[in-house]
């Protein structure tokens, strides 16, 4: 439990909590980018350089921008949304809190997995871009192809859905 981990975790949790708690949707997304960046930093700290940069590129560079765009396009007029009904709000919050409680308890109580672990490696295991590329091209080539297909389908699907019908555009 190093200092850097504590700081990064605090930043991440703060960003994410703000993202889920702020009233203004755009502020939410901006806070979200902080959270995403924090997670990317955690990846870097864990030695997964490639994944960390990919995280920044995809989430900060694409998903957040996309979300911002969607917010801009759906909030043409500020709608006064009333706060959710209190019982439902409480129920949702209780469920989330209970999930955390149960997960935390599971992590703490499950001593088995911790004992089964090998002695902690001091340096992070190496995962160079070369190794990742080799793995992608050999062992994981089929998933890679499928993901490529999925992304293509998602691209086309997103365009088709968002384009809407012709008449509506006129």
């Amino acid at each position, binding site marked *: 439990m190093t200092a850097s981990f504590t700081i990064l975790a605090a930043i991440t949790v703060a960003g994410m909590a703000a993202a889920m708690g702020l009233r*203004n949707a*755009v*502020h939410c997304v*901006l806070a979200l*980018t902080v959270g995403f960046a924090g997670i990317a930093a955690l990846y870097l700290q864990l030695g997964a*350089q*490639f994944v960390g*940069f*990919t995280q*920044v*590129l995809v989430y*900060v*560079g*694409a998903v*957040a*921008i996309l979300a*911002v*765009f969607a917010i*801009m396009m759906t909030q043409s007029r500020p709608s006064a949304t009333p706060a959710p009904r209190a019982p439902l709000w409480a129920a949702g919050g209780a469920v989330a809190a209970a999930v955390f409680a149960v997960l935390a308890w599971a992590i703490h109580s499950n001593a088995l997995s911790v004992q089964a672990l090998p002695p902690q490696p001091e340096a992070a295991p190496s995962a*160079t*871009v*070369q190794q990742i590329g080799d793995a992608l091209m050999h062992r994981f080539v089929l998933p890679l192809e499928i993901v490529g297909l999925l992304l293509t389908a998602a691209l086309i699907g997103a365009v088709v859905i968002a384009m809407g019908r012709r008449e509506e*555009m*006129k």
Partner: protein
Amino acid sequence: MTQTLDQIFVLAKHWLLGFLPAAIQPFCSALLSVVAIILVFATLFAITTWLERKGLGRMQNRLGPNRVGPCGLLQPLADGIKSLTKEDIVPAAADHAVHFMAPVLLVAASFLGYAVLPIGRNMVLTNLNAGVLYFFAVGSLMELAVFMAGWSSRSKYSLLGAMRAIAQMISYEVPLVLASIVVILHTGSLSTVAIVDRQAVYTGIWPHWFVFTPWGLAGFVLFMVAATAESNRSPFDLPEGESEIIAGYYIEYSGFKFALFFLGEYIGMFATSAMAITLFLGGWAAPFSFLTWVPSYLWFFAKLLAIISAFIWVRGTLPRLRMDQLMNLAWQFMLPMTLINLLAAGVWQFMPAGVARWPVCAAIVAVPFLLLARGLKQKRKFQLRTYRFSQ
């Protein structure tokens, strides 16, 4: 002697670090490098503004700045003092926090990219394993800053400008990355240092710069076009087109924040140009083997200045594009060409080394280029333009 001259800054840093306790040495080493980079490129920014105004003036048959200092050389200094002393106006409706953070984030993001750019031999802040990926990841932060600036101002013009800028940056990021992938494909590494090292060898007197291969040349041209769009420069400067939306997303900024936007834009432009140099023009490598005695950083900055001059030249020459033309260029021309270029690079990899792969790869790039260019030209119909969304 030449060795020392080449490594003089590295040696100086080590000499300075020697005075410090070992525990804080790595931190101080990074700090020193960062300070040096910020100072050098901020100075370059000042020089470039002068150069740009002067050069544009000459192209437009004017004199350009000529009052402050000899040949107007002190003009950037005067500009800086002016912007520092101006009143900082924030619109009443603006989102203050975001409005303040936007220029800071922009400048920070544009400086972050320099961490992986090798400025000279052994002169790089960090040699990251995934350096090129890092560069592009950090570059995508700028989009966020642009959005923050546009949105927080609560002004129609800035919001429109931001939307335009983001759409343009996202669109051109794809060909930008794809154009650089050819180099990665060839070197087999994402590390900028490794990429430059691969180019710093010579056959006879000629260097192995990637720009001297068919796919490299095409990749370089495509990269530069995409980089121009990415840094919102003319002829792709729609987001800040004065005649339409005045200054785009930073219209509501004034004083020092305005200057920060300017700085951020130029620093970003330098970073992309430096990336182009690293990827295609051999980084700090000398253009001929007999010129290797010239210190490597000098070569780097010479190339950088040459590219900046080219940017200025283009800005003074070409008219601005329309939005749909801009998008069509990205998706209908740049994207297919980068993909074809990728194919050419792949063919180059798999063909045996020799003369044969030169014409083959050149043909793979040139023939689709001609066909595509012809096709796009023919498709153009001249008719009354209809505005789909505004009516």
